[in-house]
């Protein structure tokens, strides 16, 4: 089973040289720490920056430089700053190669729910609906099951959805799965120490298992 760091490390394996990447809040933010330094990639921040750098040293903290999670950051050499309409123009226009975000639920059709839990506090969707409606390649970082043990990989989302038919790949604490265009979760890899049987039991939606499923290596 993978912890949050493990999920972030496994997702970092999906990053390719030359990509522009938008990282969501939470586990996706951690992915930046594990992208191999041999790759040249640029991280986009929806509030108006291409070229997110590491967190600042105490002496470099600048209230005019934050990421989408409102954390203080730095800029890489060669960065570009822009306003919010421009930021979402590059997102909607398909210029961002990879979007990594968290989810509360994903359906076997690739629908994603991650913005609202009715009856509890509604914080808003932020940029998530724009991102999932437009990104060419969406990888979701999530827990396979809720704390109560019910599956979050479902036939249909039970929560209000953020976008339809958009998720391409899921990295959970138990497995790596593709979401097929015709529907269904195709099992690609097992997390260390997790059996196919456990993944079957934890997946409510249609699970497709073809041949031997390797344990992930990274």
């Amino acid at each position, binding site marked *: 089973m993978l912890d949050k760091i493990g999920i972030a490390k496994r997702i970092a394996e999906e990053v390719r040289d030359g990509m522009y990447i938008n990282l969501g809040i939470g586990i996706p933010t951690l992915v930046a720490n594990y992208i191999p330094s041999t790759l040249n990639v640029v991280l986009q921040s929806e509030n108006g920056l291409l070229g997110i750098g590491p967190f600042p040293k105490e002496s470099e903290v600048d209230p005019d*430089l934050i990421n989408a999670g409102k954390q203080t950051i730095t800029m890489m050499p060669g960065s570009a700053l822009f*306003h919010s309409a421009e930021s979402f123009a590059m997102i909607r226009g398909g210029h961002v190669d990879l979007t990594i975000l968290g989810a509360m639920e994903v359906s076997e059709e690739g629908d994603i729910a991650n913005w609202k839990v009715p009856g509890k506090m509604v914080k808003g969707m932020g940029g998530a609906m724009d991102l999932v409606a437009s990104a060419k390649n969406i990888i979701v970082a999530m827990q396979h099951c809720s704390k109560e043990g019910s599956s979050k990989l479902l036939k249909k989302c039970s929560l209000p959805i953020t976008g339809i038919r958009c998720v391409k790949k899921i990295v959970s604490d138990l497995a790596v799965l593709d979401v097929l265009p015709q529907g269904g979760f195709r099992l690609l890899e097992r997390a260390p120490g997790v059996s196919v049987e456990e993944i079957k039991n934890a997946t409510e939606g249609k699970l497709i298992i073809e041949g031997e499923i390797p344990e992930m290596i990274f």
Partner: protein
Amino acid sequence: MFKENTMINKVVFGAEEAMHDITDTATLMLGGFGLSGIPENCIQALLRKGVKELTCISNNAGVDDFGIGLLLKTRQVKKMISSYVGENAEFERQLLSGELEVELIPQGTLAERIRAGGAGIPAFYTPAGVGTEVAEGKEVREYDGKLYLLEQWLRADFAMVKAWKGDTSGNLIYRGTARNFNPMMATAGKITIAEVEELVPVGELDPNHIHTPGIYVHRIFQGSNYEKRIEQRTISK
């Protein structure tokens, strides 16, 4: 015509003078993302003036004791139009008790609706929100096999923006990610008020570097006592 300085002087003494004609029930746009790039002086002046039943268009709603959160505490806000309103307990209380109306809009749609308002485009199609509750009651149209929602422009009685530097004719330059919603909002106010950290005479800003041309700005003043509060101070060791 071409005398030495033909530029129009937009300078007012401060936030009070800038909003002397604002009334209850006004629709406001307030720049900023989180607490970065918010018009701190204008928010303080709204508190002092006590105008009520405001509709505030802003990406976020501040925190309990800073930013728009201060206007929520004094119950001056009737409706918030935002994309993300977390991190505010008073906001949550008013929302659940029905004292506050909230319209949540995808962030890119919010930015584009404001841009459209300033650019004279009454509506546009966007993919964000298709198939979700955001799409309820909206026209859906297919282009090249993909579905899009019709969204309308947003405009405001007053837009309040914060810039780093500005000149007396209203040309503005922002700094870092404090730019965010400010440039679009500047274009979409019937009256646009700009507060700047440094106000300079015309001619001092390089025209190549202007982000918001002065045509959009009606009143400008140099703000004071900027706190620039940080929400998440993250440091690398």
